[in-house]
């Protein structure tokens, strides 16, 4: 191949990488091979050859398409544009270090946020009842926590592991007390002794935790909880595999990839950058519709458990919500609704959003402090009937 084209391909690959596609040197070699194979006589062939090499997922098509048309019309433009991008990258780099240095500074400064008058006196009252600070924190509403308590709660949240009742799979594992005979292993064992009789080898079905899908409301009415719940979701994502996380207000955002980051601050920063509708209105029906349409079939396979975290206060007054909730309920193994409003003594399921959702969930639980999250672990571990006892009372009230 002529050197000029190979160099241009290299620049194109670099441009794609700058645009966020995972393009490594291996891909570039493939691209050179591919272009050699189809030739450069036909622009369409050239396009699709590069497409087959560089595009790996459907959502990358748009980026590739734009980059291709800008670059191969006039490669210089893109080079110049990349030159322009460089300074912005440089200004960004201290930004990304910022949370880290802030944390380091916090650590050096000591426990500064403790100096808060009224909260402190409350602690003393509790101390008189000899309740340890940690126990008290477990009962405390997220809404009423001071900054220092929040920090402690986040630390405790990070340790919460959610055991979900495992489902049996089609795979087997050797198990001396298993219910089934394993003919393959038995024969192999007999072979060892030259065909003499041997003990039967047994096996049982392997189990694995089902996928967990979290749909969390981040609208204005949930503001005080959403930050905490994101910490909870981050702890979940890093504790086990097959966790899919979504947040919604007026629209639905998939934040699974962002939450996979081990460092909680980096992960949450990525989330806040990705989400456009923080603390706005809630359109639960629209969000569930979007989920059912584009994600349900991809993430609800293999018997997923869904946690729906919302206060059920809907801007659309529950319009279209019942049908979407019903579909969601039908396509998952268990739908658990976590509602922070449930902590109030006088809570009654009166709002139309809540009444639309209630008939289609398997469990209805509070989520406002650390204890309720820990209790959630028990609820998920108990596989029991699809509909939990706790729900009956609320259904009666809503009727």
């Amino acid at each position, binding site marked *: 191949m002529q050197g000029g084209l190979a160099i241009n391909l290299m620049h194109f690959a670099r441009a794609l990488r700058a645009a966020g596609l995972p393009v490594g040197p291996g891909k570039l070699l*493939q691209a050179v091979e591919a272009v050699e194979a*189809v030739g450069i006589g*036909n622009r*369409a*062939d050239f396009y*699709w050859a590069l497409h087959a090499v560089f595009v*790996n997922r459907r959502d990358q098509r748009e980026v590739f398409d734009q980059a291709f048309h800008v670059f191969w019309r006039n490669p210089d433009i893109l080079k110049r544009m990349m030159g322009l991008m460089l300074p912005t990258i440089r200004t960004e780099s201290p930004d990304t270090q910022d949370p880290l240095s802030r944390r380091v500074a916090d650590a050096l400064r000591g426990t500064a946020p403790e100096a808060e008058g009224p909260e402190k006196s409350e602690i003393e009252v509790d101390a008189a009842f000899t309740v340890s600070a940690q126990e008290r924190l477990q009962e405390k509403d997220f809404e009423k926590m001071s900054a220092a308590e929040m920090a402690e709660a986040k630390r405790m949240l990070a340790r919460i592991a959610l055991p979900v009742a495992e489902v049996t799979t089609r*795979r087997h594992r050797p198990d001396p007390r298993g219910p089934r005979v394993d003919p*393959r292993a038995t024969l192999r064992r007999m072979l060892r002794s030259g*065909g003499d009789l041997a003990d039967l080898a047994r096996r049982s079905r392997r189990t694995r935790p089902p996928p967990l899908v979290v749909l969390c409301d981040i609208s204005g009415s949930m503001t005080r909880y959403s930050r905490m719940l994101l910490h909870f979701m981050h702890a979940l994502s890093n504790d086990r595999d097959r966790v899919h996380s979504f947040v919604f207000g007026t629209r639905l955002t998939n934040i699974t990839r962002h939450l996979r980051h081990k460092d909680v601050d980096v992960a949450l920063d990525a989330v806040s950058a990705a989400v456009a509708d923080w603390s706005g209105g809630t359109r639960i029906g629209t969000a569930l519709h979007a989920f059912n349409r584009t994600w349900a079939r991809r993430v609800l396979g293999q018997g997923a458990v869904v946690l729906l975290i919302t206060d059920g206060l809907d801007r659309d007054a529950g319009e279209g919500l019942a049908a979407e909730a019903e579909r969601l309920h039908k396509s998952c193994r268990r739908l658990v609704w976590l509602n922070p409003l449930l902590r109030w003594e006088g809570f009654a399921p009166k709002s139309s959003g809540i009444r639309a959702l209630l008939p289609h969930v398997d469990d209805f639980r509070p989520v406002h402090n650390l204890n309720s999250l820990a209790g959630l672990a028990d609820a998920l571990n108990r596989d029991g009937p699809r509909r939990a006892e706790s729900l009956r009372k609320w259904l009666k009230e809503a009727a």
Partner: protein
Amino acid sequence: MPNTLPASVDDTLDLLRRGNYVADRSLATALYLALKLRRPLFLEGEAGVGKTEIAKVLSATLGRRLLRLQCYEGLDVAAAVYEWNYARQMMEIRLAEASGDRDREALGADLFSERFLIKRPLLQALEPDPAGAPVLLIDELDRTDEPFEAYLLEILSDFQVSIPEFGTVTAPEPPIVILTSNRTREIHDALKRRCFYHWVDYPNAERERAILAVKAPNADARLAAQVVGVVQSLRGMDLYKAPGVAETLDWAQALVELNQLELEPSVINDTLGTLLKYQDDIARIQGSEAARILAQVKTELAASTAR
């Protein structure tokens, strides 16, 4: 010469056309690259757009053997690659004992030879074939689990399988590998990196009419045009499952069986089940919506023929 690989993108298009597969140029380019550079082709797309069909057509037009591995959760090496035939091995030992004249060394070497190896599709695909390397279809890869996906990495990059008792089996000529996925779960990048990737989209109206002409030749041209028009506008709507090409063909066949020469709103209502597979979708389209779409399609068709 049906048995040679295509030499250009146009050749590839011709080859697919001979197998009654109407492809667009983007797909043909990806396929040509996969054939020419001997790398697997990874096809993603909605259900029913003709991903599996490509492998079948390739095997028929190139005169190669088709090996199909249908993936499912729990698929393991014994079902996908190889298994020892333990029963025959036992018998061999018993026979050797009964005749009493064979030495142990020879028996030991013989027991794990090819005679006792049960070959599953992946191992078969690596064997030499006089007609040329076979077409290996790994269908609906997203249904299997991650461990199996990881196992495939060795086979798809080096075209070899290691069997502990037997040694490594390497293909003299790499098979033509087609992988398909419906995206019920994301496939790992490590696997995709070893393949050429193509997203198989719904065809445009012109190509879909061509597909109908090839696959359902009994359908009246006017009926076919209307069928395609309705299906295309359904795909633009907010449905749970938009109809694929397979559904279009089913519908056209059903209408031919019912001796329809033209679409009527009542006929659409009666046959909607061949096209849409969700009750919610059917309930939404049935009745006035179907009549509205049909009227719109008919005016558009009339306008295009008048021009």
